């Protein structure tokens, strides 16, 4: 029984954390915290960090890190707005946005594998490059674009009403399901874990480490690109200064969800729960009217607590 519980704990951990936060704020009882309207609001607020966390989970499992996702989100939102503004249809704009992210990710992956520079440095460079490029393309202003269905992806009053959540939330859930399946049951997923657990061994076992890594960073970039399209949908303008520091929220979501920065560990569902936990925490603090700094301190504590629990688990093994 105890053995079984220990095995379940890493999976249950993030859920326990989320339950903790929900229970905490329910006990304090700000108005509307448990309302369905608030559930919908929090879900919509989670989409951008959630999408980013999906790709980041792969990167972190492989033992890497991607610091550029916040900037890539901004760049993709600007590109989406520019393409729309140039008179193209919304689908082309979406593809351009996701493609931008994919391209950034590919460059990250190629630089890491071909130049042999650590991911931290390469993606730190990309953080600056993508942000600067976004500002240059946007002429250091927000980019207005004609209205399209991309805006409806993030509305809290979706059509038809039975959707309940914004379409973007469903997209997040669907993509999470697909990527969880890929991680669990495909060769690519297995190789991702193999690279993260022990790169040299993986190489010896015939895993094409270079290819796998490039694919992982490209995937992470594409997720950030999609998040950028959603960010555009939410703001209705392309904003080169948006999502500043979002990469840290995204990494935090993955870590809370059971990802280990040492590589070889991580769960898509956990990351998703981690993203919701952070959203609920921010939302709850807002609803009780706590000053912003309390919220920042709490999120900091939760991140450290999540990792500390993780270490305890390892020590017990």
């Amino acid at each position: 029984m105890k053995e079984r519980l220990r095995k379940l704990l890493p999976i249950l951990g993030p859920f326990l954390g989320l339950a903790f936060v929900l229970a905490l704020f329910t006990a304090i009882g700000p108005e509307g915290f448990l309302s369905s309207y608030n559930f919908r609001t929090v879900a919509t607020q989670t989409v951008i960090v959630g999408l980013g966390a999906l790709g980041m989970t792969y990167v972190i499992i492989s033992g890497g890190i991607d610091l550029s996702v916040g900037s890539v989100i901004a760049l993709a939102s600007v590109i989406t707005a520019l393409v729309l503004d140039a008179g193209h249809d919304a689908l082309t704009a979406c593809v351009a946005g996701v493609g931008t992210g994919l391209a950034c990710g590919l460059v990250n992956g190629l630089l890491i594998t071909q130049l042999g520079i650590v991911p931290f440095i390469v993606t730190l460079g990309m953080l600056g490059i993508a942000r600067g490029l976004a500002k240059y393309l946007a002429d250091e202003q927000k980019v207005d674009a004609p209205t399209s269905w991309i805006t409806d992806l993030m509305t809290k009053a979706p059509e038809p009403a039975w959707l309940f959540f914004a379409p973007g939330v469903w997209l997040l859930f669907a993509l999470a399901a697909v990527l969880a399946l890929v991680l669990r049951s495909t060769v690519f997923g297995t190789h991702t874990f193999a690279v993260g657990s022990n790169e040299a061994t993986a190489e010896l076992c015939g895993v094409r480490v270079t290819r796998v890594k490039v694919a992982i960073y490209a995937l992470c970039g594409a997720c950030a690109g999609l998040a950028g399209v959603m960010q555009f949908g939410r703001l209705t303008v392309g904003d080169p200064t948006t999502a500043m520091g979002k990469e840290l929220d995204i990494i935090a979501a993955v870590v809370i969800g059971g990802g280990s920065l040492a590589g070889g560990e991580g769960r898509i569902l956990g990351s998703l729960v981690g993203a919701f936990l952070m959203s609920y925490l921010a939302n709850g603090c807002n609803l009780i009217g706590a000053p912003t700094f309390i919220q920042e301190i709490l999120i900091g504590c939760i991140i450290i607590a999540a990792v500390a629990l993780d270490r305890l688990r390892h020590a017990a093994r």
Partner: protein
Amino acid sequence: MSNRLLVLFVLAFGLLCACREGKAQDGRRRIAVIPKGTTHEFWKSIHAGAESAGRQLDVEVLWKGPLREDDRDEQIKVVEDFITRRVDGIVLAPLDDAALIPCVRDAVREGIPVVIVDSDLSWDGRVSFVATDNFVGGALAARKLGELLEGAGRVLVMRYLEGSASTMKREEGFLTTLTDEFGQIEVVSSNQYSGATTEGAYRTAENLLIQFADVDGIFCSNESATFGMLRALQDAGLAGQPRFIGFDPSQKLVEALRAGELDALVIQDPVAMGDLGIRAMVDHLEGRPVEARIDTGVVVITKDDMDEPRQRALLDPDLSILER
């Protein structure tokens, strides 16, 4: 393990309860006021105005800005969370004239009226727009400069930022009034932008002064542009020579005004903005008609009248109401 969790729970519960705002069980109306940021003096002045109107009218003012300053997404979250809290009304200074529209529309759909202050939103579902008339502000600056130059001379305008609606209105008001009322004054440059930072403004101003060192009059349309120009004038040893009018106060600019390096400052009234924003909302909630556009006034302050009580209050607003 579970004991430790319980302790953590109780600790967090206590901490959060301690910093929780009072609930509106006393039946007072609650009005959320959402600024663009919270650190700048300008927003504190709006807060002070709103707070004092709130006390007079017996409504609770809930003040909350975006987590990160100038972050559209964060401001949207703040609006959304106030919708969830079911406040009676929202007074908002939008960071963006388009990006905030969807969430404001949500608020109105949920039955929460919205008053816009400071910068406008490109949407007419709001109750009222309470702000400075920036065109008039620019026009006042033009008349003052025309008067100082006795109707003749060469004038230079350093603009703020492309696409910034409020400052563009000021520049437009300035230039239109100058050409309409002072035919003898020549505008030698009005196409240079300072950019958003003081550093950028400083550099642009330096370049302008190399080209137009013998200019008679200068106008800058916001605080950072004015300060950048002032620094460049001081560096070039020109401070006090051309007649110089700026927009918005800061401690340094007030010092320069006193030292005669700056001839006049155009000043808005953020305290009135907060005050009138709350009053417009309360009027609307009580079914009284509200003007769609409320002007909060703008004045020109010079060295001679800067110590009079009314001017003093605008240059150095009384924020004591915000102290706990």
